[in-house]
């Protein structure tokens, strides 16, 4: 069990990256939030790259900061922004990381072959990384994170830079992994959550805005999502009162899907909520249903 207890990080200059974060991670948890919400800061704290200003991170009940190297032995981390050594080949790079993870050569070589196969880079394994595309580098990043079969996998925006097919494959792969280990994934793409998260944590302005299962958050939105039609002259006024999920303009009217605690107009029809509605209500654009 990975526990985050009252964690906060204040940067030089006084701004808080994250604040008062309490979270228990047993299996898969997805951090969802807009850019700047503090997801990467929290991920870096969990990857021991950043020391929290307040609070602690505990793994199996022990403070991670006390023996970070013991924690790193069970950790796999894929940062949001990372580079590679351009002159090494994929296999050499993975051997380099395996050595840094303290693996022995024999098991590492077998595992590297498995990982390269898993991320479909076997045919590219002896090519210099300088020739790799962004998606190939991202897959290599996934391979290095899984190299020593970590008990905790922290992946920060893993689907960034991947094409739709690769994204689907990676999401289902991460979902499979979360069956027997702690997988913490951060993203700002709602569709990533729908297929991977067993638990969801919404971050906004560095604080936890909501946490639970995706089903719970969607259920909490029942009778709060509305479909309606309005005229162009009433549209600005409506936008001030509700959270607009979508708006389709037609010649004489506008079809809208909105989030609001009460029906925004007598003609509004309640519709089945989806995760995106909940996301927008809790962390989206700063506008909330009244």
């Amino acid at each position, binding site marked *: 069990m990975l526990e985050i207890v009252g964690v906060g990080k204040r940067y*030089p200059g006084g701004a808080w990256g994250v604040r008062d974060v309490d979270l228990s991670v047993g299996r898969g948890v997805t951090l969802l939030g807009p850019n700047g919400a503090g997801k990467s800061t929290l991920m*870096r704290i969990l*990857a*021991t*790259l*950043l*020391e929290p200003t307040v609070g602690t991170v505990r793994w199996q009940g022990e403070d991670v900061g006390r023996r970070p*190297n*013991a924690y*790193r*032995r069970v*950790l796999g*981390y894929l*940062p949001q*922004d*990372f*580079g*590679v*050594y*351009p*002159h*090494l080949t994929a296999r*050499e790079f993975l*051997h*380099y*990381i*395996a*050595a*840094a*993870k*303290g*693996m*022995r*050569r*024999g098991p*590492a*070589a077998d595992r590297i072959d498995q990982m390269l196969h898993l991320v479909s880079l076997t045919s590219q394994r002896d090519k210099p990384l*300088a020739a790799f595309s962004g998606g190939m580098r991202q897959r290599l*990043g996934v391979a*290095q994170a899984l190299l020593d079969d970590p008990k905790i996998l922290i992946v920060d925006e893993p689907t960034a830079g991947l094409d739709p097919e690769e994204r689907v494959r990676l999401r289902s792969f991460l979902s499979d992994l979360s069956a027997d280990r702690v997988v913490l994934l951060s993203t700002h793409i709602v569709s990533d959550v729908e297929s991977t998260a067993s638990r969801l944590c919404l971050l906004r302005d560095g604080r936890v805005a909501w946490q639970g299962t995706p089903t719970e958050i969607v259920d909490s939105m029942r009778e709060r999502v509305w479909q309606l039609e309005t005229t162009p002259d009433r549209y600005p006024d409506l936008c001030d009162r509700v959270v607009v999920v979508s708006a389709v303009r037609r010649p004489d009217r506008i079809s809208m899907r909105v989030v609001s605690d009460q029906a925004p107009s007598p003609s509004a029809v309640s519709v089945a909520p989806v995760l995106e509605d909940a996301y927008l209500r809790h962390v989206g654009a700063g506008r909330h249903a009244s």
Partner: protein
Amino acid sequence: MARLILADLRERTRAPGFRFALLCAAYLAWSVSTGAFTFHWGEFRPVGSASWEGWNAGLFLLMFVSLPGFYFVKNAITTDLRTGAFPLLAASPTGNLAYVWSKVLANAAYLAALATTFTALVASFSPGDLGPFAFPLLLLVGPVLLGTVAAAACFEAVPWLRGSLGNVVYFVLWMTGVGLSSATRSPWAGDILAFGIVKPALMTAVKTAFPDAMGFWDMSLRPEPWSAVSWSEPQWNMVWIGYRLVWALPFVTLPFIGALALDRASDRSPGRRFGARGPAQLAVRLVRAALPKARPAAFDGFRRLRARCEERSSTVYAVLNEMTLQIKGHPALGYAAAAWLNIYAVLFAKAYDLRHTALPLLTLLPMTIWSGMGSHERRHSVAPILYATPMSLVKHGLTGCAAAFVTVLLMTAGLTTKALVLGDMHLVLVLLGAAALAPAAASVFGAVSGSRRLFEVVFLMAWYSGPVKDYYLYANLFFLPAADLARWLLVATLVSLACVVTVHGVKSSLVRVS
């Protein structure tokens, strides 16, 4: 273009490197003002003359602007490539020439800020009035400053001069310039550092006071009991002014050359490396084609041996992988030169040649391997991955040092063997010392500065005064008894490794705080 210059200048003056450069300028100003750093002729120099202090300060400013100044400013285009700003600018209507000139002018503003700081501090520290020196100072420093900033931008624009090779080439050019200026007794067109204006005036002053005095023009970096002479300031004339201005002309052409060489499609910060394509690549292909059968067998044997070594321990595994990282990515030409020098050392070189030809060249070739240490994970943005692994930064630093030590031993195996055969234990010990101390220094400098340049500049100066010029400290190593030299090198190695441990230990704690 003004906005480009301003943006560039803001970015670079807000970086910690600028504060370091200002500190260097302040330290130089203090050392010059207190008389610790001075030019002299033999044991003589003018004392208590504001005019001399001004000339002396001007000459030191020349040296500062032209050597460290070059390395301070040679990162403008590289920064754009590293930060990803270069493709944005390349896709804009800004032309190559405007872009390179904007870098030249931003470089000039950067160095002018350092020069102004230096001059202001010297003026405030010195008792005399340095006001009358302002015009000559401009004439002295102006052309050199222009040459330095234009060369820095041009070197960055030419892909294969962007990295370490460019640093070495500039150092060699600078040493040649110093040599030409030191050799002359008149301010002719080859005298870029203007020694030919000051040197004859100082010699005249010395000969007037002490007709039998002997000595030579030199620079001292420590306080000495100087014999004072009265200084008669050289008077500027139109010929001298003309010579100084002549220097500006060739430098003005450098940005045009840079603009022609600049590749707008380039997206790699280290630049295309000399020897990575063209004749060297062709040679490598020919060799591979000529050995179609022998190659796989040899390589397989080597791979099996390596795998067997790696399986013995995880430390050996880490060291050998670090070696792979250090060795790859350098021009094949360098390794070919190292191989040839070893063959030359074994088959042809005599004892003198080993020390004065093979050793200087073979200690220069690994410089690019060393200089990447301590900073390559940051330069290639691999740090977030590596820092999250259980290998501590201290162990990482020590692993790098061990890998570089083995690499250099392999690169100098022929020279070492021949030295052992000839019984030159001093040479063997100096080689071992270089193989141990240089990586440790590189690791420390790289970790502190985050770049290769600091080590490269320091190493080139040490290399020039040591293996190339045989100056005092280095030459004395060969006069020590071999046992004393071994002890001295062992202590130095232990101290340097302690520095590696300390710096990487501090870095690892700072990484998590920031």
